[in-house]
C-alpha cells in the first residue's frame, strides 16, 4: 500500500542531479505529499528558476514513485516558499563533506556584496574562515566561487537565497 511515509522514504532516495550526495528531501524542495489511494500528489518547489536540473528532478521523482506502485502527479509550485534555509541539517553536512560550503543562514534582508566580500565563510576542506570571494557566479546558478587562503584551495560556496 502506498502511504505518505513510504512516499517520503522513496523521495529521500532521489538524488539531486547536480550534487548527487544530497537528496531532494535534504534539499527541502518537497513541500507537501498528498496520498489518496494510489494517487500521489507531490508539491515541488524549484530551487533556482534557471536550474536546468528541474525537469530531471521532476522525472526522477515520477519514476521513483511509479516504482512504488503509485500514480504520481508532480506539481511545480512557483512561489517564494523555498530558500536555502530549507536545506536540512543532514543535507548541509553532506554538502560540506562533498566539498561544497553550505549556504550561510539567510539574514533578515538579502545578502549584500559587502557580506560576500568580508563575511566569514568557512572553507569546507580545512575549516578556515580566511577565504575570499573569487566570483559571485559559479558552474551552476546555485554556487559562488571562493578561495581559501588557509589551505590554498578554491571551493564552491552554495549561494544563500
Amino acid at each position, binding site marked *: 500500500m502506498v502511504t505518505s511515509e513510504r512516499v517520503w522514504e522513496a523521495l529521500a532516495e532521489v538524488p539531486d542531479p547536480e550534487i548527487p550526495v544530497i537528496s531532494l528531501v535534504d534539499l527541502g524542495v518537497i513541500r507537501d505529499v498528498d496520498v489518496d489511494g494510489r494517487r500521489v500528489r507531490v508539491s515541488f518547489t524549484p530551487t533556482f528558476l534557471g536550474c536546468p536540473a528541474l525537469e530531471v528532478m521532476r522525472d526522477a521523482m515520477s519514476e521513483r514513485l511509479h516504482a512504488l506502485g503509485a500514480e504520481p502527479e508532480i506539481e511545480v509550485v512557483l*512561489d*517564494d516558499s523555498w530558500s536555502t534555509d530549507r536545506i536540512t541539517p543532514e543535507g548541509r553536512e553532506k554538502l560540506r563533506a562533498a566539498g561544497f560550503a553550505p549556504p550561510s543562514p539567510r539574514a533578515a534582508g538579502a*545578502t549584500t556584496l559587502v557580506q560576500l566580500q568580508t563575511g566569514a565563510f568557512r572553507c569546507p576542506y580545512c575549516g578556515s574562515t580566511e577565504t575570499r570571494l573569487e566570483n559571485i*557566479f559559479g558552474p551552476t546558478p546555485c554556487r559562488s566561487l571562493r578561495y581559501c587562503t588557509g589551505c590554498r584551495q578554491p571551493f564552491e560556496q552554495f549561494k544563500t537565497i
Partner: protein
Amino acid sequence: MRHLHERLLEIADDELVLGWRNSEWTGIAPFLEEDVAFSSIAQNEIGHARALYQLVARELGTTADELALDRQPGEYRCAPLVELRLVDDWAKTIARHWLYEAADWIRLAALRRGGDEDLAGLAAKIDREEAYHRMHADMWFARLRDEARFQEAVDELWPSALGVVDPELRAELAALVGRPEVPAVERDAHTDALRELWDEMTMVRRSEPAGAQW
C-alpha cells in the same frame, strides 16, 4: 490599463531576449570569471522568462514554449534596451547590465506589492536570484564609474533604460541611478537587432515544430 498578462509578457520577453544577449558572451568574455558570470546570469534570466511565460500561458491557454518561440518578431513586447547586440563592447554591456538590473528591481518590487498573490510570490522568488545580479552589476559600476567610455555608454542607453519600466515608476528609477528623467525610448518600436536575434533564437523551433530531440 493593459491586462496583467500583457505586462508579464513584457517582462518575460525582456528576460528571454536579454538572457540571449548575455549568453553571447559565453566563451568570449574579457576574462574567465566574466564568462562564467554572464553565462550564469543568462541562465537565470531565461529561467525567469520561462516561469513568467508559464504563468501567462496558464491564463491564455497556451504553453511557455509557444509564447517564447512561436510568435513573430513584431509580436514580442521586449524593450529596445535588451535587443541591442553589444558584443564586443564591454563598457556598453556593463552599462546596460547596471541600468537593466536597477529597472528590473523597481519593476519586481511593484509586482510584489501589486496584490496578486501568485505573482507576488514568483516576483519575490525571482528577486532572490536577481539580488546576485545586482551585486555583480554594482561591483562593475564601482570599477568603471569614472571611465569616460562607461559614462558615455550610460548616457546613450539611459532613455532606453527608462522605457523598461512603466511611466509611473520612472521617477523612482531616475532617483535610484542618480540621473534626470528624460523622454523614454518606449517599447512600441523594435530595433533591427531583434529580427536578427529572432532568426537565430527560433531557428531550431521553426525547423522542428514537433520538438527537437537530442
